[in-house]
């Protein structure tokens, strides 16, 4: 594989990983709002 193409693929993989990390984080934020809200009323 050409070096430039390899760099491009590595960059793309890093960006895909960053996307998934951010999505998981935001998903947990949403879930914590949901669960936290119900828990608050259970108290």
């Amino acid at each position, binding site marked *: 594989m050409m070096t430039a193409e390899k760099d491009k693929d590595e960059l*793309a993989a890093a960006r895909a990983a960053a*996307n998934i990390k951010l*999505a998981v984080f935001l998903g947990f934020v*949403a879930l914590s709002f949901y669960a936290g809200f119900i828990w608050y009323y259970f108290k």
Partner: protein
Amino acid sequence: MSEAAVHDDHHDHKPTGIGRWLFSTNHKDIGTMYLVFSLIMFFIGGAMAMVIRAELFQPGLQFVDPGFFNQMTTIHALVMIFGALMPAGVGLANWLIPMMIGAPDMALPRMNNMSFWILPFAFTLLLSTLFMDGGGPAGGWTMYPPLVLQLGDGFPFLIFTVHFLGISSIMGAINIIATVFNMRAPGMTYMRLPLFVWTWIITAFLLIAAMPVFAGAVTMLLTDKYFATSFFNAAGGGDPVMFQHVFWFFGHPEVYILILPAFGIVSQILPTFARKPLFGYASMVYATAAIAFLSFFVWAHHMFTVGMPLAGELYFMYATMSIAVPTGVKIFNWMATMWKGSMTFETPMLFSLGFIFLFTIGGFTGLMMGVTPVDFQYHDTYFIVAHFHYVLVPGAIFAVMGGVYYWLPKWTGHMYNEKLGKWHFWLSAITVNILFFPQHFLGLAGMPRRIPDYSVQFADWNMVSSIGGFAFGLSQLVFVVVIVQCVRGGQKATDQVWEGAHGLEFTLPSPPPFHSFTTPPQVTEATAHS
């Protein structure tokens, strides 16, 4: 760059057949599916509105029994809000955000597919309740207990519909945030983003904050009905008014979830046809953020009449008034954008101007209702119905239609029929006022909302309103004709489409290739936004 985009570097092929749509990870195809779905739901919700207006054409019970009438008002609202308007906004976001920021696709293409395909299943659940014992939900889209708990077999279907819609919206919101945060082209700084993208980032955060609270509240309704809890059941120590607080903590931001993308669309269209840059770009961004922030602190203005301490009433009144400030900033900025511009009045511009004028009427009646003592007269009357329909129909829906006319040549590669487009606008603009303006009079005269029958003194304006409703409904068929004609052929659109258009999407061919910006463009101040 997304996984799909990496893949696309090696195989730039376009899938065919039903699989292209079922398994699509392409932002343009998914955007198209969202928009088509939204249009279908617009006509389903519209058909329910026709039932409502037919029944209200004259006093007495004409066509449907009161129970079914109540199902129509409830499901009309749910279908229009969650099935027509929100998917229209997400469809436009899907089509446009990657092209506007110079990205090859959305950040999470598979999740994008799932976000869309949840919707048809969710609405099948909801609409199937019409055929169940006890019928569909009839207690209003606000689902207030204890009334909503009287619903028959359809109740769990309603709750799970809301859960599915919430999951779909939150996944869509996460995707948009990840796309804008991680996928921007080099040089596309935050303050160079097109206003439409900004309004969607802010809307996405609203969705993530508001939808889970709504999902939590309806889960508690579910456990109240089937698992003997008493969250909102007064007999068990619960508080039904608390549900109203929680619902509107979601419900008021929801209003801005519907309207902020519309603000973004209008902010794209006006500079193009005024041939001037958007006036006060930074203030538009800050005003949008301010509106979104404030939307979480005004919820109780929807429920002044439940009885709350004077301090609470005063707080919610003044907080509500304060939202007029950033909203006013936006409206004055749009007017300043047009000031001394070389304006032309193609269909997207007409819809945008209609939006500004008629949305402002809806905004002003909103201010009237924000005044606590005055709201005691308006509450639960047709004045409220007139208000929110002005905000959502000639407001949000006009903006979406303007956006469709604006970008349709880019999407299809053909110019639409301008003459028919203008017919569509003028028919819609005239009939929507015949439909909703008399409802202000009805409300002020004391006609309650959500009733199938009424006193004879309300007869005349109801008849006028119904005639306007049927005419408005028929006018929308013109929209379908224009879209179908444009998709099938027509005069070839240029890459820029409109003489005054700016932005990265207009640097692509019309129609854009299946995979756009596989090599990110270098963005400069000059190429950034209009």
